[in-house]
């Protein structure tokens, strides 16, 4: 118990505590700060770039998580069926997860390039567009493009996790419901979905956490541009704290992320409670 406590305090509690404390100081890179209370936070609340970054982060997280869930669930259901070359397809689904994020971000950077995009090139060749699409050069295009890249990268985690959950559901439920004349949709609605709910809660919590704190993809693809339209809280915190030297302000931005992350953890907590209840627990 003691080693675990020490590890938790040293590597989890201390960095989080230090980061939070820094947010209440005026620390700069290379200079220890003094306590200034809520000054950083009161400034950040009025700062239009921070407001934009918060909006971007929420938009990015909600849209990407919903799409990842939908596509991941669909893939999981598909892979749960008896398919030829089943192992091969399952391995292929994992590919985006295996590739280092920075590498896949560079690939997407090329795919979305204003002048060299393969997508634009194909669409031009097919005669469907007249000019190259400006994927990363306008705010909404850039937001959507980064979400697409995030979805591509995040689907394997959702799909494989849900597939693992699907495989824990006893086939006897499906057999019994077939005998009762249930349609495939009814089987999905009344058997698959309820029994999968606990794993969905966990998977979605982690998916939301990963998406909300995403950094590498944005850093490589856009560095928060154009016009700060793809800055997430994490990238803005980094830019201000490390590149800009405003350590305390960056820490305050990172601290502002905590309530949202706590909400995601609470979601997971209640999801797990539900699982305990389903398994005959007290709660």
């Amino acid at each position, binding site marked *: 118990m003691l080693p675990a406590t020490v590890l938790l305090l040293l590597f989890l509690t201390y960095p989080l505590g230090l980061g939070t404390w820094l947010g209440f100081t005026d620390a*700069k*890179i*290379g*200079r220890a700060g003094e306590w200034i209370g809520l000054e950083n936070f009161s*400034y950040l609340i009025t*700062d*239009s*770039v921070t407001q934009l970054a918060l909006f971007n982060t929420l938009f990015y997280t909600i849209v990407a998580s919903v799409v990842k869930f939908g596509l991941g669930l669909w893939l999981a259901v598909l892979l749960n069926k008896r398919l030829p070359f089943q192992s091969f397809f399952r391995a292929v689904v994992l590919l985006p997860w295996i590739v280092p994020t920075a590498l896949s971000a560079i690939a997407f950077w090329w795919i979305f*390039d*204003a*002048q*060299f995009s393969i997508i634009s090139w194909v669409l031009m060749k097919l005669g469907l567009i007249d*000019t*190259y699409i*400006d*994927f*990363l*050069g*306008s*705010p909404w295009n*850039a937001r959507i493009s980064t979400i697409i890249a995030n979805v591509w990268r995040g689907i394997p985690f959702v799909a494989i996790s849900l597939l693992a959950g699907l495989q824990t559901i006893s086939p006897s439920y499906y057999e019994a419901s077939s005998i009762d004349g249930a349609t495939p949709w009814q089987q999905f609605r009344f058997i698959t979905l309820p029994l999968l709910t606990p794993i969905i809660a966990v998977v979605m919590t982690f998916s939301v956490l990963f998406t909300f704190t995403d950094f590498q993809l944005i850093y490589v693809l*856009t*560095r*928060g*541009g*154009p*016009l*700060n339209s793809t800055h997430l809280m994490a990238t803005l915190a*980094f*830019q*201000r704290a*490390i*590149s*800009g*030297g*405003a*350590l305390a*302000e960056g820490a305050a931005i990172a601290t502002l992320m905590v309530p949202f992350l706590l909400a995601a953890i609470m979601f997971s907590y209640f999801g797990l409670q539900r699982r305990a209840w389903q398994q005959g627990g007290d709660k």
Partner: protein
Amino acid sequence: MSDFNNRRTILKGSAGIAAAATIGTGSAIFSPFAQAQSMTFKPEKGAKLRVLRWSRFVQGDIDAYMLNVKKFTEMTGVEVRVDNEGWEDVRPKAAVAANTGAGPDIILSTNDDANLYPDKLLDVTDLAEYLGKKYGGWYPAVQQYLRPDGKKWLGLGLGAAGSMIVYRQSQVKAAGFDTFPKDTAGFLKLHQALKEKGTPAGYALGNATGDSLWTNWLIWSHGGKLVDKNNKVVIDSPETQKALEYGKELYATFIPGTLSWLDPNNNKAFLDSQISVTNNGISIYYAAKNSTDPKVKELAADINHASFPIGPAGVPTESHLFFNQMIFKYTKYPQAAKEFLRFMMEREQFDNWLIGAGGYIAQPLAAYESCPIWTSDPKNTPYRDSVKNMRPSGYDGKLGYASAGAGADFIVTNMVAEAISGAKTPKEAMERAQKRAERYYKV
């Protein structure tokens, strides 16, 4: 002339040593002969050095640099490990090193990084003064960056990657211009003509550390500036407004997509003949000259370079990516580190490095203006005076934490991008930039 320069350099060197001796050079070791022209620092026994530098943009840079490193190790026995990172990544690593007190002994970083953590850096005044006196003096911008109080040197200048105009001669000529315009009015007319001809220009407007520096030029050329001499934020001004209105007209002529451009985008677009004019280091020309693709190689003959034009401000207002060399105080081997920098900056090594880099880096010391790289190919010459003519990024104020933070936060770049793309009115963009910059400059 060259002999004369050498004699003059030696005389200056002697004067420098004499001056250094009078102010006390502490750890410097002088030999009787060396007093005439050199200074050395005796590396600590068993010294090893770790150097972190930005990754090369042209291969010849790192090749020549590593040859000099090898020579240094052979001469002194000091092992030197050189790590390379993209220049975007060097700044955070340097910041972490400064904050934690551990990391590479020497870091070659960008712009005003040294001003972010001056207390963490080894005082190299003796070395800087020696080099300055021996090699014709440090250019003013180098002194502003690295000797912010006018006394203590925080590091040594390494040079700058010039952000000059790179253009296709044939396309500029086809647009009706025999030479590249030297004023902002002609510059705009050229861009409008290029667009009409279907050979547009493009300049980075994303969060690009090097290539978005042209936005400083845009503001400065019209008399605007982020701060005045007293570090008061004055970006929200009629001059900035004029610059942004001019920028709107200019932006209308750009190839689509420049809002997303980071540092490598314009290189790619230019070498693919999608744009006819951009701003860049000499790397586009270098890549064309050394390309194995005959089509790209052919392009080299058509490429030329020019300085940014002069605007209503009436003086050159160039902004270039500056490189500095910092020794961190936590190093166990300060003498070895100083000796390393001294060795690398001496003419025998530095000239070879400038030549190897093919003009990508312009010198910080006046004597190196005579390096043959600047005249062996006339197309290299415009890059020669990059450091000589540059304004530091925190112009017109004093450099420090605020100027470094404002630069890293892309305040000017984003203001320009917002206003000239029409995402915000110039007034709105200026107000936002003013507010953000005041946050940094309130310190």
